[in-house]
């Protein structure tokens, strides 16, 4: 095989200068093509065997490069669009409201809904997710046993405000239920959501219990601001 030395250095995950020195010192079964060329000649099988006996990584396909690419994280709007916006969610206390909210998430199977409810309750007992201004972000502490492939946010507007032990002791009337496949997705969405909630105007907009289209367009505006930062 004939390859540029840079490519081969990438495949062995070593600096090109190390490969050059090893060729000169005869420590690696590779030859230079010509006297001053930047290309090298080697036998793929022999080099693979050599790398294995010396415990060095060797892969020409470039899998590693793909692994290293940053994950593309979801935007808030698409996660919300994938979920639902539920109005008039009934219940007198935290458990009852969460129960009826989870029941509304009908795109999940019965079994997963049960798990979700238990995990949400577990998380609430740890510490309330009421983050003030009448808003709570209930979420499972760890991803579900069979999480959705992409994060989903379900927005619930409660029939009447309830006591949720929020940090500012105000009754809660809006839920954003976050279900994420990984903790990383969760943190990403949480940070974006809390950016929106810090805005006073947005909080009062939420208290009017807007419909799905209006909510999504408002969130999209916020996300544009965030991306421009």
């Amino acid at each position, binding site marked *: 095989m004939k390859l540029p030395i840079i490519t081969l250095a990438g495949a062995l995950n070593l600096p090109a200068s*190390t490969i050059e020195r*090893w060729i000169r010192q*005869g420590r690696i*079964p590779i030859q230079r093509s010509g006297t001053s060329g930047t290309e090298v000649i080697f036998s793929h099988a022999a080099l693979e065997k050599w790398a294995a006996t*010396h415990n060095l990584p060797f892969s020409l396909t470039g899998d590693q490069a793909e692994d290293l690419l940053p994950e593309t994280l979801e935007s808030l709007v698409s996660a919300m669009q994938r979920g639902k916006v539920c109005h008039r969610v009934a219940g007198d206390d935290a458990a009852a409201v969460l129960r009826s909210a989870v029941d509304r998430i009908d795109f999940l199977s019965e079994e997963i809904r049960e798990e979700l409810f238990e995990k949400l309750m577990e998380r609430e007992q740890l510490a309330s997710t009421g983050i003030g201004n009448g808003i709570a972000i209930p979420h499972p502490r760890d991803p579900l046993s069979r999480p959705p492939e992409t994060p989903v946010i379900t927005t619930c507007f409660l029939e009447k405000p309830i006591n949720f032990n929020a940090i500012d002791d105000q009754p809660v009337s809006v839920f954003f239920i976050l279900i994420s496949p990984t903790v990383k997705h969760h943190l990403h969405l949480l940070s974006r959501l809390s950016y929106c909630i810090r805005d006073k105007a947005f909080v009062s907009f939420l208290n009017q219990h807007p419909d799905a289209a209006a909510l999504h367009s408002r969130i999209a505006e916020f996300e544009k601001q965030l991306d421009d930062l």
Partner: protein
Amino acid sequence: MARLFKKLKYPGSWSLFRSDDRLLLILFAIAVGICSGLAALVLNRSLETMLEWLHHYRTYWWAIFLPAAGAALSSLFLEKIVNEGAGHGVPEVIYAVSRYGGLLRLRSSFSRLISSCLTIGSGGSAGPEAPVVMSGAAIGSNIAQAFSLNDRQRVALVGCGAAGAIAAIFNAPISGMVFAIEVILGEWSTMNIIPIAIAAVAGTEVSRLLKGNQIAFAHRDFNIHFNDILACVGLAICCALASILLTRALRSIHHVSKGVALPKWIRAAIGGSMVGAIGYFLPYALGEGYHAIRTAIDGEFSGGLVLVTVIALVKILTTSLTLGSGGSGGIFAPCLVIGAFVGLSFHRFLAAVWSSALWVNEGCFALLGMAGLISGILQAPLTGIFLIIEITGGYGVILPLIVVSAISTTLCHYLEPASFYLKDLVEQGQLLRPGTDARVLTDLSIQELLETDCICVHPNMRLADFIGIVKSSHRNYFPVEDQENRQFVGMIHLDDIRPYLFDPAMHHAVLTGQLMNTHVKTVSLHDDLSEVLQKMDEGRIFSMPVVSDNRFLGMISKATLLDQYRKELMVQTGRF
């Protein structure tokens, strides 16, 4: 035709040898062995001719100036004509092997032959072996260069050259092989042993074809008793003391001679005339001394205890004078002579003290003394054992031989931790045997360890903007460069700004130029890695910026170093 020639010039890239070059090395080893064998024979013949030619003049009084003339000529030749250093050349070969992949100059393949021929032929007390080793090694190195072989192959061929030379000059293939591996390469691996063994065979065969298969110091059978083996302990102690005396005397005369403000050739001439004056009264102390060894081993040396001891001491003195003052030659043959006489004197001493006990013939002790001295001086017990067995054809003495070699090497090691050949290299920190820490650190360069994923900032940046950069970086270090001329002005470590990071009032009030550390320790691209590590250890730091010509090039950190160090070590010590 041109293509064929080009192909012949790069045998390393033939598909037959590309993945496994053992066969290629064996073929080259034969060629190198033959060439270095021939070089050894050339020196041997010319020495004999010169001795014969000068023999008639030895009786005249002015013969005491012969060694002076020889040493001066050899020094002039080395200094003015071929421009090479004096001495025996073995440390140069070891240095080239460990530092430059065995790169030696073409002229080294004959320079020492001529200079040592002048020194020894005229009567200087030195041996022809080390010059021959240097020639053989240079021949191997230059053949490897001519065919564009890589460093590892070249080092193997340097070893082949040394092995072929020793094998040819002593008619001793195993000694040649063991010497090349134990002393020259310092690395026992099948990759090296096989070609070196082949070269030793080729060298020996050349010598046998042209000189006949003769054992240099044949002897009669010895009848060794248990008390002889016990006495060997005492002999080993004497040998070790003689070895140390020779090493120290050689070095101190070398120091004294260096301090004299005279041209090199005059210094060599002064040393030579002293040797000549001594030799006028005690001819045994002159030349390489093979004749004296033969008499001693045959047990036919007639002098008493005092004379024998004096000869051993005087030989130490003449060898030190010859080599220390700038003559050219090796230490092998003088060692053999001194060893033989130390053995004789020890035997005479024993016979005088315990005259009732039944001792083996004194020739046996002379032989054991030779092994003891070689092992002590080179600190290479295997070379000592195999050399004496082969040059005397005496497998019968193997048991006391091993005892003497082992004890003498150990004792010498206590008093002189580095052997005669390696002492200078160890003192300069240049003994870099494969697979050692020093070797790995020398092979790795800072260029290979450079981490270039740091984001540079400029000193007029506000902390708020800087925090934005911190968010997008995954490093803790940020080099600060001047905005216009891109000169390196300092470093910011995340620890430096941590107190201000959570204070929004500071975000717009502080500039990066106020936060940076301007007295940061830097390293340059060509610094020695072991010194860099020492700096890191002293300052308890884990990474340092690499700055060249006042430009920031990257960071060097212990984490990357460990990664590369481990890979390097695995590749250096692993099988090919």
